[in-house]
């Protein structure tokens, strides 16, 4: 921000909230059971996933209902990797008469390569879809519809090529990054690895959204046509942000699969895609904090509450979403930020009025 000595130099409230969440998450393993830590680790992966959607939807205004496709691609890369360690052909392939690891899976044997591909491939895929969608005149809603269809088709596809993906049953026994048969990371270590990566992703997104590129993306959301007349090719920026978002979604998938030791088609379809949209909507979009908060809160609530209200959980989610849309459209965190913003602006307006009473008076008189 500009160096100007006024109330603006103060950070928005949500940044304090970020720090609190970080403190909470860092301390978390010290006072809970290991399986809760593992659970929270999984939710942090979801939080990264939510951040990736926030970049696309919150900042750029492009609502994807198929974001889990990119997430799933990352997860499946690492998942496949642990099925074919040491050149063993997994049982589900043998069952279909495959005796050798297919050539296109060979690079995935190394989990590190698989992780990198798990980020690159979703990014490339997003770029490709982005190219098709954003260089034409397709409007916002159409993008949403296409991604929705994509989610459905991709799930069908993964189930169909069961020879290579174990279809509906998904992939299991995904290790927490043991390379060349080394001992996998312990649950708590892995938790911290995920947390550190999440923090890095968060900082990266914070930088990105405050950079010129990020501001351009925000202007796409605000008024895409106007941006064109300022000399920008909005489509290129949309492809860019979709690609970055895809890479981050892929990364979250790569981290997620070892955190649960499994990845299945439930993680990639329409339902999974809409869940992440709901987290971001409830938490608040366009400020990163909301995405993280929403992902952690809703998943945590689901885990705790489902012990009591399991059959009504979907109903609760539906109702919650309606409440958010009609009463706190900015989401929980977004509402807090907006409130703070309003208070500051009011003060500023009052101050300006006090400073220039004469010119104001003149305007009224004339």
């Amino acid at each position, binding site marked *: 921000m500009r160096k100007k000595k006024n*109330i603006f130099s*103060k950070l928005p*409230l949500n940044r*304090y*909230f970020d720090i*609190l969440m970080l403190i*909470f998450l860092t301390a978390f393993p010290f*006072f*809970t*059971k*290991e*399986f*809760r830590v*593992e*659970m929270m680790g*999984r939710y942090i992966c979801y939080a990264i996933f939510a951040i990736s959607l926030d970049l696309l939807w919150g900042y750029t205004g492009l609502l994807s209902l198929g974001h889990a496709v990119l997430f799933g691609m990352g997860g499946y890369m690492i998942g496949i990797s642990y*099925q074919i360690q040491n050149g*063993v052909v*997994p*049982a*589900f392939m*043998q*069952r279909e008469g495959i005796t050798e690891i297919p050539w296109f899976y060979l690079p995935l044997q190394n989990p590190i390569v698989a992780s990198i591909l798990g980020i690159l491939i979703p990014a490339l895929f997003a770029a490709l879809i982005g190219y098709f969608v954003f260089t034409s005149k397709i409007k916002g809603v159409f993008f949403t519809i296409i991604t929705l269809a994509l989610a459905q088709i991709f799930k*069908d596809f993964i*189930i*169909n090529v*069961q020879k290579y993906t*174990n*279809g*509906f*049953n*998904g992939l*299991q*026994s995904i290790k927490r990054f043991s390379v060349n048969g080394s001992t996998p990371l312990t649950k708590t270590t892995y938790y911290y690895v995920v947390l550190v990566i999440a923090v890095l992703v968060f900082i990266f997104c914070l930088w990105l959204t405050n950079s010129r590129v990020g501001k351009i993306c925000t202007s796409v959301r605000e008024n895409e046509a106007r941006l064109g007349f300022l000399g920008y090719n909005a489509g290129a920026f949309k492809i860019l942000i979709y690609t970055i978002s895809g890479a981050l979604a892929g990364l979250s998938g790569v981290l997620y699969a070892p955190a*649960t*030791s*499994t*990845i*299945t*088609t*439930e*993680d990639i379809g329409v339902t999974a895609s809409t869940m992440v949209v709901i987290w971001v909507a409830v938490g608040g979009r366009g400020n990163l904090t909301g995405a993280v908060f929403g992902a952690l809160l809703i998943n*945590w609530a*689901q*885990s*705790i509450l*489902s*012990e009591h209200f*399991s*059959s009504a*959980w*979907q109903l609760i989610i539906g109702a919650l979403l309606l409440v958010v849309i009609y009463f706190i459209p900015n989401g929980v965190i977004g509402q807090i930020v907006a409130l703070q913003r309003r208070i500051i602006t009011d003060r500023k307006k009052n101050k300006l009025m006090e400073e220039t009473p004469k010119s104001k008076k003149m305007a009224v008189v004339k």
Partner: protein
Amino acid sequence: MKNGTFKKITAAFAAVSVMLAATSCGGGASSSSSDGDVIKVGVLFSESGSTALVEKTMTNACKMAFDEINEAGGIKGKKIKYIHEDYASDPATATEKIKKLVEQDEVVATVGCYTSASRQATLSTLKDDNALLIYPTYTEGEEVSPNVIYVGNMPNQQATDFIPWILKNVGKKVFLIGSDYVFPKTCNKQARALIEMYGGEVVGEEYAPLGHTDFSTIVNKIKDSGAEVVYSALIGDSNTSFYKDYQQYGMTADTPICSISIDESNLQAIGKEFAEGHYASMPYWSSLDTEASKNFVSKYNSLFNDGTVVTVLTEATYDSCYLLKAALEKVEDPTDTTALINAFGGITFDAPQGEIKVDENNHCTWVYSRFGQIHDGAVDILYTTDKALRPEPWPSVLYPEYADSNFMPSWDDPLCYPQ
């Protein structure tokens, strides 16, 4: 200004600590009750999501069985306390919930999981924590985990008697269909081998995506193939459309559908007129005319009036609970999982379907094979095996090499289960 910020931070800290307190309370409440006079058992079935409905009847069966056991005095004087967790039809949640049951609630065993995907998702936890899952669903086999007891039948128990009978009594040209995923494909692979072994001919094989509703194309292909019988492993609601389209597009029960994957709940949805005359095979049908079966069905129906019906899954889940009871009675210390698993070998139970037995070696269960013709929305049982059939997780017709080693690879073979 700084003061204000400080206040806000304090407030937020307070909020967080409230959240924490709530969490630790939730954690503490259930783990504190691990005293000596109850035996805790996990029940892991979905209450929400796509398979919730099917799993509801399984949850009910657990409730019914454990309440019966407790009324009859429990196990060596100890009552069973069952803790139900919902995995929302999502395998990843199943992983989380099995961890909760094992690590926090410290259950001695869990009865649960419906889809293969959810069962497989729990395997690594079961292995890491050396815990036990009793799995009641009929399954595709080709997997045996040392931490799972498979009470649901293996495909061979539905097919080995059914297929020769079909070839002899119905027709030799068979068309295989199924939903597009692991269970139907594996079952059909075995069916194909059996058909060829008994001198039949497979004239076509088709798979429809899960939840598919337009079967006109597949029915046309069946018609063009000249099939005399259709062998079906279609799952769930697809069956409704399939049986309807089958008749709508001019096929009749003269070319019957022989299904290994429909039960009473599907029959209700398909409708009497469309299911009439077709065949189906399962270890248990609620129409079974024995004292034990009739009592079981009427008791279930009197207890639960929630739209669910008794199916093979209900029965198998009920059996699972009783097999667990028998195993628990055999061991000194119920928390010794290894001993408990070993205790299952050879255990028998006089189930509604007849006497069943857990195999001494391969963790699967000897169950009956029953098939019949659908008439007026129920199955008229035409054939029942004399006694329970041997389970073959790796069916001998496809894997003769395992026939001498309990129909499975050795326990340390990576093919045995995903590890």
